[in-house]
């Protein structure tokens, strides 16, 4: 009896294995199917909408949208690339770009762009530069994000203060923070966004007139007075007491504190727009302006592109898709959804009006002076930088000491 059972199980096992083995042969005739990879759940439905429009205009192309959570996205892409199954078109970001371009995993698009109708001046130049390697452009920006100064109107009203304006300087902000801080009630004027350089430090470095990485991406600019000033402002903020302590911010995120009405002003990136406005605790009570200036106005900008796999079996169709994604038509769909800022200039107004109750124009206003997010071949330099910055924020070393260390470390990593 037992033997029969065992035999049965073994047979079942074999059967189930071979059921999977009967994979359909690649459909040579009929529509071409493109694989498209992205990582953002809230953008996926919008992408599906765009795909529908695209497929209607191109009946012989089908697009299969694959969602992979961000944490596992790059491992998956790398594995797929090595195994030869990289999706035809996939999202690419700055930090990973050079590695893919250098290893010829993505397709340069100069020729195709030239012979197309794409108007290059409709897209932020900083992003076009970001995705250029060895004079080859590998993609048109699909979206961009940058940071603005969010504030809680209710807290300002309670303190009897005027709301921030686009002309504010850092000192204006700190002066207001002093009056808004009420530690007994757990309210702080501002919050130090030292946990994310894209939202915090890099913006102030640029606004202070400094730079993070050199143009040739072989060294860092921390050992200059301007850059150090950009770092110093956060150290001063942490020492001022108008922000939760670094330990508190490690335990509880600044974003959560802001949406709980505990922070009066805070640097907030454009990806926070929807989460902020969906949060019933601060709905209707918040608004935003452009970042305060230090030496001048400055901000850092980053955005994604839709890259084409260099080894795709369908280069023409992939290009058609990418071309469509760069068009105003596709960008308008992104803009209306409000989930992300479209890269096409002409679609910006639609996005700004997606949430008319807040001043989204603030993000757009910063475009003229927004600089490229610093990227190199791997994130090793950024991780080393982060480790040393941590020591600065926790008052273990001074800004000057730390800056020297950062420059040394980064040069030893990038200079190889």
């Amino acid at each position, binding site marked *: 009896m037992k033997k029969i059972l065992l035999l049965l199980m073994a047979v079942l096992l074999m059967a189930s294995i071979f059921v999977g083995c009967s994979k359909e042969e690649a459909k040579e005739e009929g529509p071409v199917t493109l694989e498209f990879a992205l990582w953002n759940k809230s953008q996926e439905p919008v992408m599906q909408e765009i795909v529908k429009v695209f497929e209607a205009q191109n009946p012989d192309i089908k697009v299969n949208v694959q969602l992979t959570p961000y944490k596992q996205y790059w491992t998956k892409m790398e594995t797929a*690339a090595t195994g030869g199954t990289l999706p035809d078109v996939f999202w690419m970001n700055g930090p990973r770009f050079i590695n893919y371009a250098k290893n010829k995993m993505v397709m340069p698009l100069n020729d195709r762009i030239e012979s197309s109708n794409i108007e290059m001046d409709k897209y932020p130049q900083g992003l076009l530069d970001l995705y250029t390697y060895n004079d080859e452009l590998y993609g048109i920006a699909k979206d961009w994000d940058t940071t603005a100064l969010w504030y809680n109107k209710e807290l300002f009203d309670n303190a009897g203060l005027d709301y921030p304006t686009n002309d504010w300087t850092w000192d204006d902000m700190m002066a207001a923070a002093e009056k808004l801080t009420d530690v007994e009630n757990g309210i702080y004027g501002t919050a130090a966004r030292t946990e994310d350089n894209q939202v915090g430090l890099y913006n102030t470095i640029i606004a202070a007139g400094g730079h993070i990485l050199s143009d040739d991406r072989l060294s860092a600019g921390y050992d200059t007075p301007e850059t150090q000033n950009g770092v110093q402002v956060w150290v001063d903020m942490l020492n001022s007491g108008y922000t939760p302590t670094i330990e*508190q911010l490690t335990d509880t995120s600044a974003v959560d504190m802001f949406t709980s009405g505990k922070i009066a002003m805070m640097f907030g990136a454009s990806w926070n727009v929807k989460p902020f406005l969906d949060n019933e605790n601060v709905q209707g009570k918040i608004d935003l302006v452009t970042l305060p200036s230090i030496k001048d106005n400055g901000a850092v900008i980053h955005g994604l592109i839709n890259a084409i796999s260099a080894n795709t079996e369908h280069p023409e169709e992939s290009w058609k898709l990418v071309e469509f994604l760069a068009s105003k038509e596709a960008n308008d769909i992104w803009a209306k959804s409000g989930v992300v800022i479209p890269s096409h200039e002409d679609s910006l107004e639609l996005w700004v009006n997606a949430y008319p109750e807040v001043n989204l124009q603030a993000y757009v206003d910063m475009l003229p002076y927004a600089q490229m997010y610093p990227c190199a071949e791997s*994130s090793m330099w950024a*991780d080393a930088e982060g480790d040393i910055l941590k020591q600065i924020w926790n008052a273990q070393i001074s800004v000057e000491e730390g800056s020297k260390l950062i420059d040394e470390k980064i040069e030893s990593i990038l200079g190889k």
Partner: protein
Amino acid sequence: MDESTIITKRKLPKKRIKSEHLWAYLLILPTVLGLAIFYVGAFIQNLFYSFTDLGSFGSWSFIGLDNYKRIFSDPEVGKTLSNTFEYVLLSVPLTIFVSIVLAVLLNSKIKGIGFYRTLYFLPAVTMPAAVAMVWKWLFNGNFGLINVMLGKIGIDGPAWIADPNFAMIALVIVAVWMGVGFNMIILLAGLQGIPRSYYEAASIDGASPIHQFFKITLPLLSPSIFFVMIMSLIKAFQIFDIIFLMIGKTSLAIEETKSIVYLFYKYAFEWHDKGYAAAISIVIFFIIMLVTIVQLKLQKKWVNY
């Protein structure tokens, strides 16, 4: 001694031995074949790549022992190894101790034992991501449930996760919490193999439950305990995910908790140096292998079969 019980290999006819060998190979064939294809090959490949400078997409060149030389002078390797050792030394004995006590308790004939067992099993079933989220809140320095409770009895709780001095303790607590359910299953199964009659006989002789535990339970459970010990050690050396889910890259506490597998992961998937990562993994392998061999040798001393 009955002649029939003394069946040593020498006395077996050749045909008997050959048949035994044949059956043995047949029985191990699926597993060994499967493991060879899917795992051993990969392992050897990994060993090979540790002598190269393998990058992200498959390009490599031979660099001999350079990776290994680098490992010995890399302070981060030293730091992560020491963190990992600390974690192993703290969490493994504690986990095993609690698992044994729990398994014995959950083997009692009391009402609702099924209910208890299910609840104690829950931690093992939950996704690590959810576990990390929840414990992060519980450990919150200002508002976490733990510190709120401690506050009620007048203790000012530390910032468990933010403070480098306490993060390891928090990590160990979570590790024990997660790990016990798993071990408990194996130990419970092992306990089934101990006939009740032994305990009854001991009771009649007047032995207390504690006495019975040490003289009957522990020795007869030792094969399962041995298994749990080896697996717990192997698993503990490879701790990685939960650290980052709970503590996060930007915390100072990471310096005191980052593990060696974290370093491996960074080099393999973020810093595009798969060759160095492979070398790190081989170092991890040797350490674990050494510890396991020591345990295998010691098993003769305390494990009863």
